[in-house]
Every structure is written in C-alpha cells, then in structure tokens.
C-alpha cells in the first residue's frame, strides 16, 4: 500500500528553506517546547519554564511586557511619522497638518503614536507600582529596581521631547513651562535651560535639539537600559516568587552564575 501523500504544509515544513529558519518541530512536546525558546532570539528573553504564578494575570498584570510592546508600537509609528515630519520652524507644523490631510493613514499613525505614548507613561508607572507592592525590588533585585526607575525617567523624557515636535501652541507653551522649571535648578539652572533650549527661548534650535533627542539619543538610551533590565531579570532569578521564611532563600531563587 502506498504512503499517503504529504500535505502542502508538511512539504513546506520538510523543505530545506523552512528547516534552515525553524530548527524545531511544532512545540507540542516538552523537548520541542524547550527548543523553541532556546533557539529563538526573541523568545529566549524568557526561560523555558516559569512558575505557574508568573503566568497568572493577577500577579504581574503583564505590565512590563506591555510596556515593551508599547515601545515597539511607538518605534514603528514613529518611523512612519519621520518619513513626513520636517524639524523646521514653522515647517514642522505644516508637515503635521499635511500628515492629517494628505497622507494615507497619516492621521491614524499620529493618533496611535500619541495615545501609545500616553499609555506607555501610565503603564511603566503602574509596572513600578506592581513591582513595589509585591516586594520584588528586594535583594537580589535591588540594582534592577534602580535601573527600572531610570527607565521611568527616560520614558518621561521621551514623551516630553516628543511634545514639542508638532510646533503648535500646546507644544510651545508646555515646553516653555517645563524648561522654566529646569531653569530654576540651584546654581546651574541658567546653563541647563540654555542647553535645553539652544538659546534663551523656545525656537528653531530647540526644535532640532529635541527632535534629535527624541528620535535617536533617548530611544537608544532606553534600548540600552531595557537590555540591562531584561538581562538582570534572568540573572537575578527570574520573576519573583514568594519567600515566607529565611530557609526558603536559595531553594526558590536559583541565581544563574
């Protein structure tokens, strides 16, 4: 009796192209469930297995992961906006108007970028609160908590630098208020304010500086910070699990050396 003919999907999976990309079979058995994590660049941020509690929505609320997801959405929509945006006075304003009126999906992408940015500030803040409430900052995770606070500050700065870019009344005066605050730093306030503004008031030089910070420097700084943050989660023993007594320390936390 002849073998049944393989289906198209089976033939694709057996092809040398497919097998050069995905080295594991569909992960429905423990061996392949391990391999799929270990052999994927993106997935290997995760360990192969986690405590069941870590998958409980009511423990983490997924806030850290969703913050990363928002960063990806913001990068994608941000690059789209960069295709059309001109960091020029008053050209910036007209490029935003143009985006809304004559670019396919222009208004939608700008809206998505704006609301995702607000959501990211909110979710990063809530993530910090969750980590605090579960005591997940306690040793050995104290350094990673500090990195996390730094990431919160970077998130604020990214959002704030983006606020100026549309060059409308809302942007100009919000940034005037904000830089005046920074200008009141004791001793060095004047110098900080001048450096932020590229002059004595919000103008073309400010726009170029903040645009550069917004699209290159701060995102790169955030990526570096996030890399340390994720790496240290794993090195510090993964997601926090309950410790009720001294003796338990060490049995639950397996530090990767």
């Amino acid at each position, binding site marked *: 009796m002849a073998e049944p003919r393989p289906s198209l999907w089976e033939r694709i999976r057996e092809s040398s192209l497919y097998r050069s990309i995905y080295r594991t079979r569909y992960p429905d058995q423990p061996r392949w469930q391990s391999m799929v994590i270990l052999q994927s660049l993106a997935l290997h941020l995760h360990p192969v297995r986690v405590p069941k509690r870590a998958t*409980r929505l009511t423990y983490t609320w997924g806030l850290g992961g969703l913050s990363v997801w928002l960063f990806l959405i913001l990068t994608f929509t941000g690059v789209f906006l960069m295709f059309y945006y001109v960091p020029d006075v008053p050209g910036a304003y007209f490029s935003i108007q143009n985006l809304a009126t004559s670019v396919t999906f222009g208004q939608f992408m700008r809206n998505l970028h704006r609301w995702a940015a607000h959501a990211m500030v909110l979710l990063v803040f809530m993530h910090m609160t969750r980590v605090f409430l579960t005591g997940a900052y306690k040793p050995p995770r104290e350094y990673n908590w500090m990195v996390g606070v730094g990431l919160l500050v970077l998130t604020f700065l990214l959002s704030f630098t983006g606020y100026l870019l549309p060059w409308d009344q809302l942007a*100009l005066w919000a940034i005037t208020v904000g830089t005046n605050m920074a200008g009141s730093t004791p001793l060095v306030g004047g110098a900080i304010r001048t450096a932020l503004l590229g002059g004595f008031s919000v103008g073309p030089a400010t726009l170029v500086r903040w645009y550069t910070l917004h699209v290159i420097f701060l995102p790169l700084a955030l990526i570096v910070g996030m890399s340390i943050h994720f790496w240290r989660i794993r090195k510090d023993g993964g997601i926090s699990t309950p410790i009720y007594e001294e003796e338990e320390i060490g049995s639950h936390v397996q530090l990767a050396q």
Partner: protein
Amino acid sequence: MSSLPSERIEEEGAPKPNPRERFFEDVPEDELRRVFVWPNLLSIELIGGLLLLLLLGLLAVLVNAPLETLANDEKTPDPSKAPWYFLGLQELLLHMHPSLAGVIVPGVVILGLMAIPYIDRERVGTGIYFTTKKGLPIALFSLAYTAVWEVALILMDQYLPAAEGGHGLGPYLHTVLGWPEWISAIVVPSAIMLFIPALLVLLVRRRWQADRREVMIALYAFFFASFWTLTLVGTFFRGESMNLVLPWNLPGFTQ
C-alpha cells in the same frame, strides 16, 4: 517570626500555628510548579498585546491627537500647562519656590525611589502582594491620609488672603508677617513636605507596629497619592491664572 520560649510552652498540645498566617496571601504550592513558557505564558502575552493594540487602534480611530494653532510666542495661552505627567510638579510650583518644586522635590523623589531596596533589605516577604496582612490597611490609610492633607493645603493656599492681592501661606508669611522669602517659600514648604510623611511613619508605627517593609508601603503610598492628587488637581481643577475652578468651568483648549 520566631516565637518566644514561653509562648512555645503554652502552645504545646494546641494545633501548630501556621507560620504563614501573618502574610497577606499564602500562595499554594501548585502555583510555584514550573510550567512551559510555550504555550502557557506566550499565549497570554500574545492575547494581551493584541488587546492593547486593538484598544489603542480604536482610540486612534475615534479620537484625534490635538493640534492647535501654529506656535506663537507673543500669544501666551492662559493657563499654560505642561503635559499631564508634569502637572503635579506644576501644581507644586504654585505653592513654593520654583527650585524646590521643579528640581529639588522631583530629584529627591527619584533618589528616594532608587533607595527603597537599600533601606528595606529583608528578603522574607518577596513576591507577596503587600507582604503582610497589615500591608493593605496601611496602604489604604496612607493614601487617604496623604490626599486629605494635600487637598487641605491646596485649599488653604487658594483661600488664605495675603497682601497685594496675593493668597496662600507663603505669600501671607512674606507680605503680611514680613518673613524673608527664603523662609516663606523654601523652609516652610520643605518643613511641611517633611512633616507629612514623618507623621505618617509615626502613625503607622504606633497603630500597626509597622516593620520596615510596612513603613516602605506607607511611604510609597504617600508618593503615589501625592503624584495623583497633584496631577488630578493640576489637570482638572486649574483654570485661568491657575486659580482653582471646577472641571466643567475649565477654559477649552482653544480660546
């Protein structure tokens, strides 16, 4: 955790006390069993990510990002407001010296947050919401305590009259009593900002015999409530000349 010898003698014969009784939750052993990330965690992450994208996509379809008229540095809108997450700081500006409100307070807050794990170094209690059963009542009390204090202080600064048409405690001390500005705008507000959390720590220590972690919970709740109280007041209750108004009397975005 460790019971005194005398207690141990008394408890002999009685049912063994559960050492986990003092904790807010006792996570069942089953929850600590390790499960495969594929599919147990990845499926949840995928669904969560898609739901968030869907929600934001809907919002982006329904609500346009604001775009006002072209920037004009000769036409100052009243009120001029920073983005919402800085409105808490902008609210502080109304009550004290700008160096204090705009730089020193946020700087101290960031350093204070970073210092938390170096002050509370006890590893027992990790991974448990609020850690002990006292954690939640302490947090709720601290939230309410902070919000009441701050709303009261904001109202006082609005309605306490000072000379030269001004109002508020700082201007009153400066213009009516003639105190120098560095005392009325820096020393007095700093003292108030230190007194509120200090009294809070004292209260939770007295009322709940709070340990270090529980004191941290009280202080984080103080920070959390301050951020949101000031942000909400700055966003919804500040109108022309940054005077207190009710939200429905706020001037629209475009005058």
